[in-house]
């Protein structure tokens, strides 16, 4: 199969290549929700006007929309971070019972090593659980080419396909040979057929059909050409997929490889034959022993896997060489040097800082959520005390309250509130809670790189959209005590917090300052603050705000390039030593 023309080579990141793959595969519709390391997939798809693409309120909505498009007979894609697939799993687990009409691919971007994630989760198990085929690319060229393979499988077997990438595949660049867009013109359209599409009533018969489909897929996997064998010269065989393949090729250039593109269902005969032809077979896979446990269950014994290789963390060639060849690690001499770390901090001028300073002063228990504002848990702010996953903080706060804890406040970002906070706020009202919620409305999806969402009033493509009115929404939910407060005015912010805490019944405060990187903010003229050394007593109060714009040292100074003039340090200074530049 020729996928590309050799004269059109370009350097591309894995996520950009996935977007290109969607374009070339004739994808008609794409949806998703931002989440590292998946965000750039949809951002790049947005550059192709041939594909209708949009940010969804959350991953389940993205999945359901794409599902509707696929059932209409067109090729649809949805993309998300691996934890996003947890959100979308309700649909994902049921869809295979009916199967699809047009090609349907869900992209899950895993994060081995947890570079920007709350847990280390191996989503390959979800493909097995949902009983769908799973495709895994190992580099940018495959990232592009395998999108097309995924659609072919999806249509051949009328099934959703899980396309699993990982941080290293998504965020590595390589040379990619481009192809043309093939317009997909599927002949099949949705036909009303209750026994096939009303799954709950007909689940029993559909279950039997799904099992039969997986049997056909398993037989197909045996001869699938992209599960390829590379004959080597040593007695070592390696079974691997994804980014691990690239590391293993570096460390074992002489070995034979069974490189799997389709990692669910597994080709039992092909794997058994490969194992029989080699003295020892290394199963090299990041995270859980997903392949290994299945292979061992078939009674194959010349296997080396998690008995030698780590089960957590990202792999790299060093990890493989140390675990399998007994190589000694190169001495990391940084421990001999007094190396100061560079911990992540909220940006200079970040509005979350003002909210956290008020919360800290109030001395309340703060349940937190997912976003830049998770950094408010770290010193010197230390004003957020729990954080687990998207949209959980309001439910947690209500739970703490029911559990007998006093003065609990939930914090949640604007995008997160739309994603998963609304039902829990409804619940607080419905069940007579007293919970106070602070919506840190910075008018963007900050952590993932400033994506639009329904309350920013802009689409993925930067076109105007109806702007979700959060205050009206919260009032409509039935919250009677709703305030909008300026986090850069500490007195006002603290006062609002006190009033909310004293209010009998649910209360919500929305902060009203945008992220310094939100649309239009970067170009806004800013006057920085400066420190008057004649008045400064070097008390250090300004240095305890966790602002990177206030430089460390006995005599604090302000980085005038970084300073946005938010004034929080000036409000924290008891000696009036911090003044706007030019005002003496």
């Amino acid at each position, binding site marked *: 199969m020729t996928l590309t023309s050799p004269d059109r080579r370009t*350097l591309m990141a894995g996520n950009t290549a996935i977007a290109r793959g969607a374009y070339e595969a004739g994808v008609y519709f794409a949806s998703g929700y931002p989440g590292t390391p998946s965000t750039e997939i949809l951002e790049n798809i947005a550059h192709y006007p041939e594909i209708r693409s949009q940010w969804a309120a959350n991953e389940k909505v993205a999945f359901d929309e794409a599902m509707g498009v696929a059932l209409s007979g067109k090729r649809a894609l949805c993309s998300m971070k691996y934890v996003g697939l947890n959100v979308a799993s309700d649909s994902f687990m049921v869809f295979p019972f009916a199967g699809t009409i047009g090609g349907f691919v869900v992209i899950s971007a895993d994060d081995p090593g947890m570079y920007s994630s709350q847990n280390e989760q191996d989503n390959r198990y979800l493909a097995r659980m949902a009983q769908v085929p799973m495709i895994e690319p190992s580099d940018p060229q495959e990232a592009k080419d395998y999108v097309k393979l995924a659609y072919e499988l999806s249509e051949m077997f009328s099934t959703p396909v899980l396309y699993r990438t990982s941080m290293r595949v998504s*965020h590595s660049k390589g040379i990619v040979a481009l192809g043309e867009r093939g317009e997909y013109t599927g002949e099949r359209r949705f036909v009303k057929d209750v026994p096939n599409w009303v799954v709950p009533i007909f689940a029993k018969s559909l279950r039997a059909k799904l099992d039969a489909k997986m049997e056909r897929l398993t037989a197909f996997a045996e001869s699938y050409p992209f599960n390829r064998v590379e004959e080597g010269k040593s007695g070592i065989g390696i079974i691997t997929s994804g980014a691990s393949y690239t590391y293993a090729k570096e460390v074992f250039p002489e070995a034979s490889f069974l490189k799997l593109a389709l990692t669910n269902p597994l080709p039992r005969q092909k794997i058994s034959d490969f194992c029989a032809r080699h003295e020892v077979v290394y199963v090299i896979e990041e995270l859980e022993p997903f392949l290994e446990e299945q292979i061992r269950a078939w009674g194959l014994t010349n296997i080396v896997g998690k008995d030698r290789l780590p089960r957590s963390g990202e792999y*790299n060639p*060093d990890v493989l060489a140390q675990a399998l060849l007994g190589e000694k690690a190169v001495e990391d001499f*940084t421990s001999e*040097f007094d190396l100061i770390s560079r911990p992540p901090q909220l940006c200079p001028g970040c509005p979350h800082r003002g909210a956290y300073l008020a919360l800290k002063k109030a001395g309340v228990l703060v349940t937190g959520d997912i976003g830049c504002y998770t950094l408010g848990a770290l010193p010197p702010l230390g004003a957020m005390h729990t954080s687990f996953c998207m949209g959980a903080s309001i439910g947690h706060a209500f739970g703490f309250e029911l559990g007998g804890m006093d003065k609990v406040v939930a914090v949640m970002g604007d995008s997160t509130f739309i994603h998963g906070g609304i039902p829990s706020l409804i619940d607080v009202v419905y069940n007579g809670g007293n919970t106070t919620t602070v919506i840190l409305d910075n008018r963007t999806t900050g952590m993932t790189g400033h994506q639009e969402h329904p309350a920013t009033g802009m689409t993925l493509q930067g076109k105007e959209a109806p702007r979700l009115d959060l205050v009206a929404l919260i009032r409509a939910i039935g919250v009677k005590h709703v305030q909008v407060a300026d986090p850069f005015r500490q007195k006002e912010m603290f006062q609002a917090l006190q009033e909310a805490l004293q209010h009998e019944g649910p209360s919500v405060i929305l902060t009203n300052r945008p992220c310094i990187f939100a649309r239009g903010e970067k170009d806004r003229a800013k006057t920085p603050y400066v420190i008057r050394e004649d008045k400064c007593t070097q008390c250090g109060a300004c240095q305890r705000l966790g602002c990177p714009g206030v430089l460390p040292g006995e005599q604090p100074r302000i980085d005038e390039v970084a300073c946005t003039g938010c004034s929080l340090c000036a409000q924290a200074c008891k000696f009036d030593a911090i003044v706007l530049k030019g005002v003496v």
Partner: protein
Amino acid sequence: MPVTNVLLCGVGGQGVLLASEVLALVAAEEKAEVKQTEVHGVAQRGGSVVSHLRFGEGVYSPIVRTGEADILLAFERLEAVRYGYYVKPGGLILINDVEIMPGQIGEYKPYPAGIMEFLSGKGLRLQLIPAAAEAKALGNVRVSSLILLGVLSQHLDLSPRAWETVIRRRIPERLLEVNLKAFEAGVELGRSQVEAAASGG
């Protein structure tokens, strides 16, 4: 052709990622295979940033192995120490003569002294690059990245034509002239440093 392994490191906001993108594009102009990777996510302004780049033939992994980098280009002195152990024995570290004080929590620590002595004690070759001073002389403090790339170009087997092609393609029109000048200044600086080293100076 053997694989060349390059590491670029620095502090978020210094232009490490732009520089590594330019380098990767230059390598892609004339090499069979190029792989580049970096860490995204919480590496924001002020955080430590590292980018791996490998080119040549038979490049699979984008990750440079520890102790195998041919050359490390450090945009900041302290970061040269943080990633120095990636460099192969006797390998080269190009160090931008810039100190960026890390944001600190708790007890204040002054910026560490003795970085050059420490690294040369590890058997690594060092070359200090006064990019900030050069940039100032060119009248634009933001072109340090291109000066550093100019110096780096003198240590890599990539043609001047490829460098110029990519810089012209990647840098916006209004900033192109000063960046080309900056790159040339870096080339001159790198060449004189290489000659001085060759003559034992």
